[in-house]
């Protein structure tokens, strides 16, 4: 069961309209290394994770990823709200606008729609946790790219928070992998 808390996990501020940057940010809204993919991956994998610890970690990190997904949407919203057609055409946002208008649609930074082909759930906790660790590293890299793509210090603050969370999630998944491997070894019967 999910509850929703009517606040952002961490504040999102932008200092100016920037539909071009909003277009780049879509990769973390609906792209291969993004927050929606992470949430769906972890919240799908959790059902077949052995041990309460495994289920807890996948549930809690998956839930936090939804809060991050909300932060990215907020960044896109604030970067595009009230943009004129001239501003939209001058930035790279025109293609998105033509299809989705001012709607915030889960696509990547090139307008490719989100797909669960970006994720896997194998039911094998060793495979799943390795995928999760890789996903967190790819997300970290993507945030580093996005931070370089803007000079808006306010926006960068939110992106730096999100980058740091990827580092912590990677750490937790690594700890969970060690634990699960130990657990599975202890269940072996020779």
């Amino acid at each position, binding site marked *: 069961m999910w509850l929703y808390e*009517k606040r*952002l996990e961490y504040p999102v501020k932008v200092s100016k309209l920037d539909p071009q940057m909003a277009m780049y940010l879509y990769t973390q809204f609906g792209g291969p290394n993004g927050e929606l993919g992470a949430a769906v991956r972890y919240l799908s994998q959790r059902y077949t994770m052995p041990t309460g610890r495994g289920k807890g970690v996948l549930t*809690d990190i998956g839930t936090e990823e939804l809060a991050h997904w909300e932060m990215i949407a907020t960044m896109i919203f604030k970067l595009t709200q009230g943009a004129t057609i001239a501003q939209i055409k001058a930035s790279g946002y025109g293609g998105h606008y033509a299809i989705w208008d001012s709607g915030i649609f889960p696509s990547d930074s090139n307008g490719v729609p989100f797909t669960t082909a970006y994720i896997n759930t194998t039911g094998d906790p060793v495979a799943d946790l390795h995928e999760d660790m890789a996903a967190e590293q790819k997300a970290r890299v993507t945030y580093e790219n996005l931070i370089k793509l803007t000079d808006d210090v306010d926006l960068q603050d939110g992106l730096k928070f999100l980058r740091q969370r990827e580092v912590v999630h990677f750490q937790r998944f690594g700890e969970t992998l060690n634990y699960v491997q130990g657990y599975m070894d202890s269940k072996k019967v020779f």
Partner: protein
Amino acid sequence: MANKNVNPLQEVQELGFALVELNLYLDTHPEDANALAVFNDLTTCYATARSNYEAQYGPLINFGTSGPASSWAWIQEPWPWQV
């Protein structure tokens, strides 16, 4: 605990984030009694911060978790992406 110089939303966000972080840590270190003690202290501070925020701005959590409502403030703007 409660800091009267911090705005109510910021206080909820700071305490709430500390609790998210501690929750994840305790998930992989469930035997860490010190961390559990800090978590427990923060839950008390967080409850106070949430009540303080909700008194001014309405409920934070849906489906009854934020308690009874004198009016249906839940749907009022601004929503988080408008703040």
